[in-house]
């Protein structure tokens, strides 16, 4: 009897716990309902201020809705570990670049670890990794271990930096997590300005201060490249490049050289030229340690074409962004242009003073992610460690620059490889149709159970309602989000959760059919159905578990509700209905006829 009392206590306690965990959800719902009743915004503002604390509390603990129900952006970012490898390698040659290209190609259609692919490619070609990485005396295993550490470190640092950027941008309840060896999942509920988010996440925020080489060197370099391309065209080795096929001046066709030595590149030629300048045979034609870069901003030509400024820069930066301690978006004093002012740490300050002092009268380019923002002429030595980025289009862009500069530079570039956007109105459609399905599903099953099993059916329905309550409360309690597939899982659970009860009731009917007395029939029914229930529920749980492990995003939501629902049905169908029957039998309220 003592045991019985414990079971009853357990049921009551668990139900109370479930209700308690769902209480904030109800609270938030009723607050929102009250809020929508106010006609003026002052009233609702006053109401929010009055109930701020409990409102915030309710929001924090209420049942979360997934991105698909709430609207927002889901992105998968890939950290470009190939770029990281490229940064880390010494004395790179043609062979190294070939290997990297192979690795890149193979990585593009598989989720394998980059380092493993690299190691595989090296051992296939019979070269030691230490020829390019770390110390020549390192064994391959040591190099692989070090590279792997470095890749992991890069990934977790990238996640931190992205988290900083998102936090500073201000998104409520963002989810940022590492997936696998090179991916970061970013879920941003409720964001609307997708393009801004994309830019914010994608930029490496690598800030560099580079010396601008003189115009003569740039023009001489361009002449050499032009001549080389002409030769290519004549010898026909450039068959693939149809853009430069028949032109007399294959390079200068893509740019305008002004009298004063400035070079402008039309926007449509930008990508072609950038990839051309990347080529090894072209880069060799430039003076040592120099590279071409273009301005971030364009200026409009007479016919409306947008032009970028072309610069020849010293490749090795004088100073990099890691000395930046502070960044602030403001409007400049002259012309009210948006700009970002920066402060440097002590080391940066002294270096900056030395660099500016040594280069008075020359241009220093401020380069962010490979694009030149401005290239002011140094007028005097700057002792205070301050610098300014101008040449920014809008205040919004300046604010985003501030965010990325504060958050720090990513260790390697990231690419967006998957992006899913759900508008808010679709979300509310989903909620409506999801609730409708769940309601109808529950109604149909409940009515059927009563129709088919009479009084016993009522107890199964009670168990079913309790089951749904448990699923929702576990979701709310653990902060897991309810998604549309999650609702589908819940509806499916409604159908399957009665299975255990059907098994038991059919068994009890059989036992009653063999003229056993009611109490014995119920006891045997439960005990004989037990093994079938366990076996069948465990297989369902197993399928749910596999879905959770291998599925991503939305599918996991389905798996979670299915698993919780199945596990909860073990308790509700076995323990709760048994308790109800025991109670009814002891009160003589249950007869053989109660099982239909």
């Amino acid at each position, binding site marked *: 009897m003592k045991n019985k009392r414990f079971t009853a206590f357990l049921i009551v306690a668990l139900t109370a716990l479930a209700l308690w965990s769902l209480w904030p959800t109800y609270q938030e719902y009723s607050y929102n309902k009250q809020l929508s009743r106010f006609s003026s915004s002052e009233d609702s503002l006053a109401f929010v201020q009055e109930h701020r604390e409990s409102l915030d509390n309710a929001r924090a603990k209420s049942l979360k809705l997934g991105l698909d129900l709430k609207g927002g952006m889901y992105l998968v970012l890939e950290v470009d570990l190939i770029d990281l490898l490229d940064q880390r390698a010494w004395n790179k040659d043609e062979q190294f670049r070939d290997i990297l290209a192979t690795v890149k190609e193979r990585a593009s259609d598989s989720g394998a670890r980059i380092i493993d692919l690299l190691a595989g490619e090296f051992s296939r070609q019979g070269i030691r990794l230490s020829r390019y990485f770390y110390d020549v005396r390192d064994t391959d295993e040591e190099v692989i271990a070090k590279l792997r550490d470095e890749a992991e470190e890069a990934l977790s640092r990238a996640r931190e930096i992205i988290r900083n950027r998102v936090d500073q941008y201000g998104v409520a309840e963002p989810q940022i997590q590492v997936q696998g060896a090179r991916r970061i999942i970013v879920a941003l509920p409720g964001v609307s300005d997708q393009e801004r988010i994309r830019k914010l996440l994608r930029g490496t925020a690598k800030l560099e201060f580079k010396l601008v080489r003189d115009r003569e060197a740039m023009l001489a370099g361009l002449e050499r490249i032009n001549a080389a391309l002409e030769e290519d065209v004549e010898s026909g080795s450039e068959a693939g490049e149809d853009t430069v096929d028949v032109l007399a001046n294959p390079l200068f066709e893509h740019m305008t050289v002004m009298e004063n030595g400035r070079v402008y590149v039309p926007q449509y030629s930008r990508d072609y030229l950038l990839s051309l300048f990347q080529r090894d045979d072209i880069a060799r034609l430039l003076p040592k340690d120099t590279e071409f870069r273009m301005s971030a901003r364009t200026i409009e030509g007479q016919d409306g074409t947008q032009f970028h400024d072309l610069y020849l820069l010293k490749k090795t930066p004088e100073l990099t962004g890691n000395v930046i301690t502070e960044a602030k978006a403001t409007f400049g004093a002259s012309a009210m242009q948006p700009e970002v002012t920066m402060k440097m740490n002590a080391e940066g300050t002294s270096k900056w003073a030395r660099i500016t002092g040594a280069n008075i009268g020359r241009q220093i380019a401020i380069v962010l992610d490979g694009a030149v923002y401005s290239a002011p002429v140094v007028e005097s030595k700057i002792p205070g460690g301050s610098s300014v980025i101008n040449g920014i289009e809008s205040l919004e862009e300046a604010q985003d620059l501030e965010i990325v500069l504060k958050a720090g530079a990513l260790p390697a570039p990231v690419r967006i490889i998957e992006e899913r956007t759900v508008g808010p109105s679709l979300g509310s459609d989903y909620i409506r149709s999801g609730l409708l399905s769940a309601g*109808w599903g529950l109604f149909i099953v409940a009515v059927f159970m009563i129709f088919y099993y009479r009084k016993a059916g009522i107890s199964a329905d009670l168990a079913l309602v309790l089951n749904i309550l448990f699923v929702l409360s576990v979701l709310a309690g653990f902060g897991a989000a309810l998604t549309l597939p999650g609702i589908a899982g819940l509806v499916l659970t409604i159908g399957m959760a*009665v299975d255990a009860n059907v098994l038991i009731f059919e068994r009890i009917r059989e036992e009653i059919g063999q003229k056993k007395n009611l109490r014995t029939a119920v006891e045997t029914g439960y005990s004989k159905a037990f093994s079938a229930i366990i076996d069948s529920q465990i297989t369902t749980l197993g*399928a749910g578990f596999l879905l959770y492990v291998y599925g991503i995003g939305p599918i996991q939501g389905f798996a979670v509700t299915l698993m919780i629902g199945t596990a909860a049905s073990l308790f509700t169908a076995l323990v709760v209905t048994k308790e109800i029957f025991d109670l009814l039998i002891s009160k003589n309220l249950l007869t053989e006829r109660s099982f239909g």
Partner: protein
Amino acid sequence: MQLFSKTDIDFISYRKIAYGISLVLVIAGVVSLLFRGLNYGIDFKGGTEVVLRFEQEIAVGDVRQVLRDAGVSGSIKSYGTERSILVQTDFEGDVNQLRTLVSNALNDRFSENPHELLRIDAVGPSIASDLKWAALKALLGAVIAILLYVGIRFEFRFAAASIVAIFHDVFIVLGIFSLLGGVFDVMPLDINQSIIAAFLTIAGYSINDTVVVYDRIRENIRSQKSGDYPKIFNTSLNQTLSRTIITSGTTFLTVLVLFIFAGPAIRGFSFAILIGIVVGTYSSIFIAAPVVLDWQLRSKKPIRLRGSS
């Protein structure tokens, strides 16, 4: 109320006919898979998907014409309602470019019928190939887990037969997806992530039904000790028939509700499960247990069951 009181259907003697029907269905499915193939969604082939909704009804043909003229390639069809359009393209560039391209073209042409971009999904090729692997691993993992679990709880022959039943179910549903893929506008039956979830659910559901039958067979073998296996199997199938039909029925009804009410996003998913429930229920009666029986009759080894009852 009782729908199936004390049935005495001779399932076992019908099994050869059932094998024949199943074989025809599976072969038809496989042939269709080989020649028609499947409609892969962007989850598995990469690409971009845009769902638009107009304020009023609109002819898909007009939208298709306008977007084609604007340079949007790929398929453009209606999505669920008369007002919604689904654009699927292998557009690989900036999602924002596509968004402005689509919006501008449609705003120019249909200024009196404004539209809203409900959803944009873009999946890169490497994600798509990873998903394929994950899906295969999940299905393989399910098969191994079931072999192990049923093997331990019952016997190897039972486990193998349940895998046969699962493949039977999955291939028939895949075959139907291949045959009907793209036939109905309201239900394109693309293979995407949620369909994989549906297949695992079908596998889980099929084994669930099968295990209940096995459980009864085990119990009856223990209590009767006669060794008249065909009779034991048939009695067990009859004894569990009521439960099998009722559970399948309630699950079928709820999934039917999902299919009708839950909108186009999970229509393919619920369709897969609807078919899966029917086929899975059939296979747990006519395939799984009969295969164990035939195997037993051929090998003549007595069934020695593990596990408790």
